[in-house]
């Protein structure tokens, strides 16, 4: 098996995550899809690290994880705040600026 197969999986997962962000309406599911995209990028980093025999990719994936954790914390706090004021977790309902 070629190590590059992991990259194909990563590409597929990233694409699926991107579709989810666009198609789904529940803010939490949208958020999970963003996480999926970040994870797919991490898999690429780790695979490239192995292909190049260099650990820099793994360090980069580590930093991505930290940033993703921060993003989850702040994002979920925003979702909770929006839910508290609008009683809805749908991304379509937060459309005050449109009107």
């Amino acid at each position: 098996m070629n190590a590059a197969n992991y990259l194909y999986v990563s590409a597929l997962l990233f694409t699926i995550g991107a579709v989810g962000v666009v198609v789904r309406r529940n803010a939490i599911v949208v958020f999970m899809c963003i996480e999926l995209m970040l994870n797919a990028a991490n898999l690429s980093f780790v695979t490239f690290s192995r292909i190049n025999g260099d650990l820099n990719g793994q360090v980069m994936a580590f930093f991505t994880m930290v940033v993703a954790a921060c993003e989850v914390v702040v994002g979920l706090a925003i979702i909770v705040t929006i839910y508290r004021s609008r009683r809805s977790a749908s991304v379509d309902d937060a459309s005050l600026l449109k009107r």
Partner: protein
Amino acid sequence: MQLALQVGQTAQPEAIMFWLLAPLAVAAALGMLLVKKAVHSAILMAFVMIVLAIFYIAQDAVFLGIVQVVVYTGAVMMLFLFILMLVGVDSSDSLTETIRGLRPIAITAAVGFGGLLVSLLGRATIGRNAAGLATANADGNVQALAQLLFSTYVWPFEVVSALLITAALGAMVLAHHHHKADFRPTQRQLSINRFRGESLGSAAGLPGPGVYARHNAVDVPALLPDGTPAPTSVNASLEARGDMLDYKKFDLAEINTKVEEEK
């Protein structure tokens, strides 16, 4: 075996693991898009993350694999499920399109994007001869990563710690629910307000709901002597909900004055 590794092929067990788990991971990710309930999405997401952790460990990234399990399937998915339960577990996603034609466009774009990525990877010459991490991980994966993290990447590492603290503070500020000061006037203050206020109209106490009105229910304002309704007689929360009835001036002409004889 040795020859296989030299031309960049991985060992047989890893291939079996990959072909077993990779389709499952992709299927779970697709399922995430298709299932209606957010909780099911979360479970499928956790599965994808565990598979990715296995992939990391298989690719000589032991530390990242463990961190993936601890941080993602542990903390992040836990947080997701917690918020999911908080925000409403039964609020299933409405699958109707709000923007017309969004879904076909999104799927077309995704197929194009995915096809582009996959064909790009297919044409590239990367991975034909994977170098492997045997030399880089000679002292152990964690030790090698620590060496990099605390020498080359020590400044980003510090910045990331600042980011973590900022995120924690931001979440606290965002999620903190500011209660209004729960100030309740004492009986003495209420009494002073009643008699030393602008008028003595309510000095004898406010009428209860339904006094002299057509019905004596709690949502009917009392009628004052001149026939005007007194909305202060109804509980303020009922009024705020719009549940107050008969909010109009009492008019004698409306009343049928002809008294029917009882038989």
